């Protein structure tokens, strides 16, 4: 009996946290998204009120509607923010992959006594606050910033480049911030690859380059998928980077949400945006989980 209770607690605790920290807030956000905006505190109506008993609850439920969701489909701003977020996340993911793969590859090929150090260097940026690191990029990218000074000093450009407050700066920020999430799974896929496979490919007639395409690359696909999801999923909802580095025309759903919430004080629409963002993210997250499970099965 005691064992059963213990086991129940053990399994129950994570579910309890999930309920408290995810489902309850989500329920609140969902409820707000079905409400109407109001000049009040909190700035929406109806609010939950048990004083009026059963009638009060009925009135409360009757006042909930999908108005805000309809509104989202009608205004171009939201659609284009969603699409623009997807595009920025996708392009950033591809860029991270293109930069991260050679990085992970050379780490995996480095002498084994160097590898812990290299790994350390990849993780090192996490020791500083994310916000500060993104701020630092402003200093680098701004018109009279370090990058422009360097480029003009070397003589590559005559006039300073305008990078800050453009989409380019957002790409740089996202790729910089999420690169470790790409490199680490790629590295672990490449590092555990058996070197004799490449020798076997060469023995059977491959040059080193074709051995890479036929053996290394296909075998690192689980790492590519894992790394891509780890960059793509958080990048879609990114707010800090487009806010600090992007321009006024950089549209990302996280930014739109922030504007609705704080500038327009339209909590119901902001909540609807958040709910849709979550639904949008569920698809890649589920795909990612499936892929991880498959990768784990293949390893056994």
């Amino acid at each position, binding site marked *: 009996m005691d064992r059963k209770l213990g086991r129940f607690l053990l399994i129950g605790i994570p579910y309890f946290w999930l309920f408290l920290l995810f489902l309850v807030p989500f329920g609140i956000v969902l409820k707000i998204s079905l409400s109407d905006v109001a000049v009040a505190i909190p700035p929406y109506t109806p609010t939950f009120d048990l004083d009026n008993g059963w009638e009060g609850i009925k009135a409360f439920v009757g006042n909930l509607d999908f108005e805000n969701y309809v509104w989202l489909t009608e205004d171009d701003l939201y659609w284009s923010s969603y699409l623009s977020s997807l595009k920025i996340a996708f392009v950033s993911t591809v860029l991270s992959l293109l930069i991260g793969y050679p990085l992970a590859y050379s780490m995996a090929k480095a002498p084994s006594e160097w590898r812990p150090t290299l790994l350390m260097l990849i993780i090192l940026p996490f020791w500083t606050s994310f916000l500060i690191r993104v701020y630092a990029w402003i200093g680098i990218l701004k018109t009279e910033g370090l990058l422009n000074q360097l480029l003009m000093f070397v003589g590559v450009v005559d006039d300073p480049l305008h990078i800050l407050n453009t989409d380019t700066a957002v790409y740089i920020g996202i790729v910089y911030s999420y690169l470790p999430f790409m490199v680490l799974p790629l590295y672990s896929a490449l590092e555990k690859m058996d070197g004799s496979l490449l020798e076997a*490919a060469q023995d*059977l007639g491959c040059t080193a380059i074709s051995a890479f395409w036929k053996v290394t690359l296909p075998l690192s696909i689980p790492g590519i998928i894992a790394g891509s999801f780890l960059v793509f999923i958080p990048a879609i909802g990114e707010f800090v980077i487009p806010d600090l580095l992007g321009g006024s025309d950089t549209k990302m759903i996280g930014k739109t949400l922030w504007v609705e919430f704080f500038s327009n004080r339209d909590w119901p629409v902001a909540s609807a945006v958040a709910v849709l963002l979550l639904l949008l993210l569920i698809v890649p997250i589920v795909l990612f989980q499936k892929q991880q499970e498959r990768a784990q099965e293949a390893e056994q």
Partner: protein
Amino acid sequence: MNTSSAKKPSARFAPWDNPDEKPLVRFKNVTKRFGSFTAIDDISLDIYEREFFALLGPSGCGKTTMMRMLAGFETPSEGIISLGDDDIGAVPPYKRPVNMMFQSYALFPHMTVEANIAFGLKQDKWPKNLIAERVEEMLSLVQLRKFAKRKPHQLSGGQRQRVALARSLAKKPKLLLLDEPLGALDKKLREQTQFELMDIQEKLGMTFVIVTHDQEEAMTVASRIAVMDDGKIMQVATPEVIYEYPNSRYVADFIGDVNIIEGRLDHKTEEGIQLAWAEGEPEIKIANNASRSENENACFAIRPEKVHVTRDEPQGVDNKIKGQIDDIAYVGNLSTYHVRLSNGMIFKAQESNIRRLANREFTWEDHVWLSWRSTAGVLLD
């Protein structure tokens, strides 16, 4: 050596005895160093076409390094390796008509059995229909036709080993390298696979070089064996010669069981020479040792199965010594008797167990006679 003259050269496959025969592979004064460590030390070696050549030696003696130089993964620090008429020192692995079966099999985990076997053929741009034909042929050769569509992780160890073999044979290499190909198999499967390997080698008429640290395996499969130690080749000869006429204590010790008696030579005659080995014991008579002279120090080596054990003093034998049974190792078909000699040395003698255990002739502490013919052992330095 003295045995090769006893064989009929015409009936036997022995290109190494024919001075006109050109070797397929030739190592000429090859040295390989890794930094300051010398892994291969000035080796010269010829391997002939259609040979099943074994490199035998303890772990770390340089066998894999020899193979990797043949496959092209290592280049010799000094010396020349040639294949046919070509110096292959600088030829990259993918251009060599040599294939290797890896110790770990190195099967591509993302490809089916079929695709693994076809890999090298595709690389060589064979036409599709010929690839399909060749893959079929290889699959039947290793009896894996039913498993063509499986991935390597869906196969047993023995099946994987066969896929690796089929893949390395598919391109019809001039030379097939097998690095401890049976190391991961259990004993029974290993023995069975040894015979299959020999069949395949004979059927295809190809040249195989096998690396092993298992002397029985080398003896079973090889036409010739090179016994290696510490980057050097100690002896290259047929299994019979290696076994019966080892050229050094190291080789005698490494291959099978051996008794070694140290002593001093004297009484040289037409028939042979004698070894004085202990006070008050008769000298050991050894036939046919024209090259040795009196008053040299020497070792006498004799295999346990060449020594007879009897209760009564044997008559009309070349050599006999008295001793007492110290231990008996019973392994079913054979018993090895550990016999203590007058000087305390333990001498091993092996008899096959024709009678059942209960009727066995000897037991512990019995006094027995050991005897052998003067031609049964060899003299070593």
